[in-house]
């Protein structure tokens, strides 16, 4: 039999080992070698503080009493973890972007950085958390007692109490040492996380070792143990459905809401991606922790004497079978479970108490405006936190003493859980529902807290606090207020009853209060940031332009963070703004970011209040919100304008490209024309020269002379015509033409034109409708006829049909007289259609062309001078030109 002193020695050695681990981790983190300290594995193991001594010892006891029901406590967290994408991912993201320090901070920050809400949430957490800490102290002292008894030293109550004091003091020292070493801007505690990760391994190994020993060492293998289960007192599967479902819900909710779980899940989370691993690894851990619970319970019930405490089977079974080493390991496992939970819970509660109760009160005493010494607020906070740690542990010890440390404590675990989950509706509402307001949150929390206190918490103390008479008849004879049968709902399991009513009324009050109240601007801003955390991670503006100087802000930041850290932050911001030195420009953005840095140390509400003092309350107002909205609208407007502009530019660019193409084509044609025109000019010149040479150098008779002179004359006429055309065009283009306005009938003009086209027009059949041509015009008739002649001559010249035909159609379109000249040839290719009216234009492959390509250009110029137009009409079965006569001059024949 091992001595009790050896046990104490081993326990102390284990504690010393944890100290070293924590120190080493802190050291590594400080040196920046925190690589594997921030791994998903460490994160997963740190979550194991969910498995407290209540799990380590209590689960077996629970199983021995109620069978499989114990497992519900681990099913809930499993569901939350495998469904991490739904809630946890959002919580962690919000926690990181908003620098959340605790669950009270989350709620306070979400609802407009309300100090009041932070206090309420803190109060609930402390009241619900204290019994749980007491439970841990009890389990450690009980396990000491077991060994003392085994060692032959029977422990009295006084010994137990003394042990509890020592355990509490030891835990306080450890927690103060590692929990308040640095008032880190992001509230991470590497030493503690590392220590609890080690403890997580120890407790898992211990429980698995005991389980394996029990199943294969005593029970005789898995199959035999299963058989034993079916023979045991817990063999009957008659699980109450209400309790089973309620407990799964309760444990899932508590996993999210317990302050210590929030601390490790959200605050200590180093990387969002760790959730991915933890989502399956932590359920696996829970599974392994629960695997041997029922076998240990069943085997314990079989081999231990009647009346042995099943809560301690994990210890007593190895001891009773003489496995001292295993018992020692098991003791260390239980010790680890208890201490790790107490440490983290204490830190979480102390952070909440100092940030949401002590510091706001201290700020209210008005001493803040006095001498501003660098780091003085920091000292207050650190002191407050240390005192809070001691205070929370003292409360736990006090509770342990007051409750007598008996079986009443064992029942408190679930009651404590249901107290903690009173923040669930407000928390989920806050992160998923923008309509949730501060008033609603206060109403919900208070309602839930009151109902929980009345139906679960007070009755858990037994008849000392709530008399049997009140339990049976209700307070002052009001039977509908009986703690375990509110509003006459009797017959439910007390836990299910209390949980149901507290959650229902809590949620209802929260919802009604939110719907009926109107949020402040800050609440609305925060609400939008929390709910839309994935859509918009950039912080919105919470500060209007302020009168605070950068120096004042630096002094204040130094008071909270200490000199060097504050200066580093200011320097960084100044550098980002492109300035040297320590004082950045005080922009609203800078203030908002500074506030967030401070919030990482003292919580959102305090940080907001402290900055508010400097900026003289120039916090965001409804007007600012509207201005921000306007700004957003303006930005959208501006971007729309930009879009429109770029579309317009694209259109312009297209037009320019088209113009450029046309210019290029024209330039090519111009070159072609120049060579053409020189050719055209040269041909008659050549013949004139050669014939005149012949006439000069050779003797010939009069007839030949006359013939040659005739040729020379014809060529000269051709030359003149060409030059006339060119002159004509240039005159028309320069606007130097004089128009002789006369009256005439359209049919006469067309007849004149057909006749004048002369020889060429005889080759082509012309069809007209004289009845329609009876239109009286007043314009320069000669010029108009010139256009008609040109079109008819063109048709005769270019129409490539077997039997060329030209239709001349007169129409009245919208009061404007048009004359169409449509032939039955192959028309003009689409690519050439916009080119034919340019001067020098002549379709390159036309061999039959007699002119120099000036005809249509002249026509266009004439029509423009006359106030009409000429256009090519595609798709008429041949080349079709439409001459639109000047509107005002076209007078219907009467």
């Amino acid at each position: 039999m091992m001595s009790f002193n050896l046990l104490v020695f081993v326990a102390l050695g284990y504690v010393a080992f944890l100290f070293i681990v924590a120190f080493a981790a802190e050291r590594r983190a400080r040196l920046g070698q925190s690589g594997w300290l921030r791994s998903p594995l460490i994160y997963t193991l740190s979550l194991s503080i969910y498995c407290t001594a209540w799990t380590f010892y209590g689960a077996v006891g629970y199983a021995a009493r109620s069978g499989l029901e114990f497992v519900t406590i681990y099913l809930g967290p499993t569901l939350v973890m495998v469904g991490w994408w739904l809630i946890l991912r959002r919580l962690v993201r919000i926690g990181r972007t908003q620098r959340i320090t605790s669950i009270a901070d989350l709620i306070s920050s979400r609802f407009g950085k309300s100090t009041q809400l932070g206090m309420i949430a803190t109060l609930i957490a402390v009241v619900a958390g204290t019994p749980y800490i007491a439970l841990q102290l009890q389990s450690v002292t009980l396990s000491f007692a077991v060994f003392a008894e085994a060692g032959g030293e029977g422990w009295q109550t006084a010994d137990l109490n003394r042990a509890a004091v020592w355990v509490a003091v030891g835990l306080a020292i450890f927690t103060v040492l590692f929990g308040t070493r640095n008032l880190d801007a992001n509230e991470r505690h590497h030493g503690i996380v590392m220590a609890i990760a080690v403890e997580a391994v120890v407790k898992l190994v211990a429980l698995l070792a005991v389980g394996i020993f029990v199943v294969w060492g005593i029970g005789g293998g898995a199959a035999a143990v299963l058989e034993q289960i079916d023979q045991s007192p817990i063999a009957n599967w008659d699980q109450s459905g209400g309790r089973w479902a309620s407990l799964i819900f309760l444990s899932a909710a508590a996993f999210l809401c317990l302050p210590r779980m929030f601390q490790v899940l959200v605050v200590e989370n180093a990387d969002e991606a760790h959730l991915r691993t933890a989502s399956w690894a932590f359920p696996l851990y829970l599974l392994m922790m629960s695997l041997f619970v029922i076998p240990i319970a069943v085997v314990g019930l079989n081999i231990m004497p009647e009346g042995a405490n099943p809560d301690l089977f994990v210890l007593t079974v190895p001891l009773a079978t003489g496995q001292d080493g295993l018992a020692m390991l098991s003791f260390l496992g239980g010790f680890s479970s208890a201490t790790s939970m107490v440490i983290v819970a204490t830190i979480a509660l102390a952070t909440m108490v100092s940030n949401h109760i002590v510091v706001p009160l201290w700020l209210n005493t008005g001493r803040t405006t006095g001498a501003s010494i660098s780091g003085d607020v920091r000292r207050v906070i650190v002191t407050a936190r240390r005192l809070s740690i001691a205070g929370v542990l003292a409360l736990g010890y006090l509770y342990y003493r007051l409750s007598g440390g008996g079986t009443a404590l064992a029942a408190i675990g679930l009651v404590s859980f249901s107290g903690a989950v009173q923040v669930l509706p407000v928390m989920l509402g806050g992160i998923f529902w923008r309509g949730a307001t501060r008033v609603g949150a206060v109403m919900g929390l208070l309602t839930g807290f009151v109902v929980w206190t009345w139906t679960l918490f007070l009755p858990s103390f037994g008849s000392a606090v709530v008399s049997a008479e009140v339990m049976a008849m209700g307070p002052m004879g009001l039977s509908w207020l009986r703690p375990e049968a509110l509003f006459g709902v009797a017959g439910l399991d007390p836990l299910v009853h209390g949980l149901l009513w507290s959650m229902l009324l809590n949620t209802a009050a929260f919802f009604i209060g939110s719907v009926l109240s109107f949020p402040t601007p800050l609440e609305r801003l925060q609400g939008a940031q929390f709910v839309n955390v994935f859509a918009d991670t950039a912080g919105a503006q919470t500060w209007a332009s302020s009168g605070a100087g950068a120096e004042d802000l630096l002094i204040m930041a130094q008071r909270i963070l200490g000199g060097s850290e504050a200066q580093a932050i200011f320097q960084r911001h100044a550098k980002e703004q492109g300035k040297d030195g320590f004082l950045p420009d005080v922009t609203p953005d800078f203030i908002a970011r500074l506030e967030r840095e401070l919030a990482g140390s003292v919580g959102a509400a305090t940080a907001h209040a402290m900055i508010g003092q400097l900026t003289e309350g120039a916090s965001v107002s409804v007007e600012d919100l509207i201005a921000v909205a306007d700004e957003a609208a303006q930005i959208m407007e501006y971007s729309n304008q930009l879009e429109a502009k770029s579309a317009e530019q694209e259109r312009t660019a297209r037009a320019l490209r088209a113009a450029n193409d046309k210019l290029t084509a024209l330039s090519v044609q111009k070159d072609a024309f120049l060579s053409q025109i020189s050719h055209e000019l040269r041909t008659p010149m050549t013949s004139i020269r050669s014939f005149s040479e012949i006439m000069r150098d050779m003797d010939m008779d009069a007839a030949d002379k006359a013939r040659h002179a005739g040729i020379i004359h014809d060529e000269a006429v051709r030359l003149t015509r060409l030059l006339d055309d060119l002159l004509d065009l240039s005159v028309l283009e320069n606007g130097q033409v004089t128009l002789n306005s006369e009256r005439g009938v359209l049919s006469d003009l067309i007849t004149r034109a057909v006749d004048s086209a002369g020889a060429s027009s005889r080759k082509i059949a012309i069809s007209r409708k004289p009845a329609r041509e009876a239109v009286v015009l007043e314009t320069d008739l000669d010029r108009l006829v010139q256009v008609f002649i040109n079109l008819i001559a063109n048709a005769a010249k270019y129409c490539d049909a077997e039997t060329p035909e030209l239709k001349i159609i007169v129409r009245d379109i919208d009061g404007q007289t048009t004359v169409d000249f449509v032939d039955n040839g192959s028309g003009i290719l689409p690519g050439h259609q916009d080119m034919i009216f340019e001067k020098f234009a002549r379709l390159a492959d036309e061999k039959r062309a007699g002119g120099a390509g000036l005809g249509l250009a002249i026509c266009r110029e004439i029509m423009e001078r006359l106030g009409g137009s000429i256009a090519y009409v595609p798709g008429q079965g041949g080349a079709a030109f439409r001459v639109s006569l000047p509107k005002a001059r076209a007078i219907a024949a009467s």
Partner: protein
Amino acid sequence: MTPGKERAVFLARASYRQRRLRDALRMLPVLGVILWLLPLLWRGAGGTGIAVQYVFGVWVFLIVLAALLSRRLVPDAPDDAGEDADG
């Protein structure tokens, strides 16, 4: 969600897979609840031994499923920003 930023109506195959993977992850806890509430409906069909095996079996199943899904998931896929909109 952000105004002015258009969301694609159809996605490439890979991002489509990612979306459905997230849907599956969302459904996982629902599946767990259903499977674990099932034993409540058992009436005299076996004792605690069977129930223990069933509950732990479901547990292992969920863990394996969660591990498979979470491993294939790309947490910050490019189309992450608006994922709340399509439920």
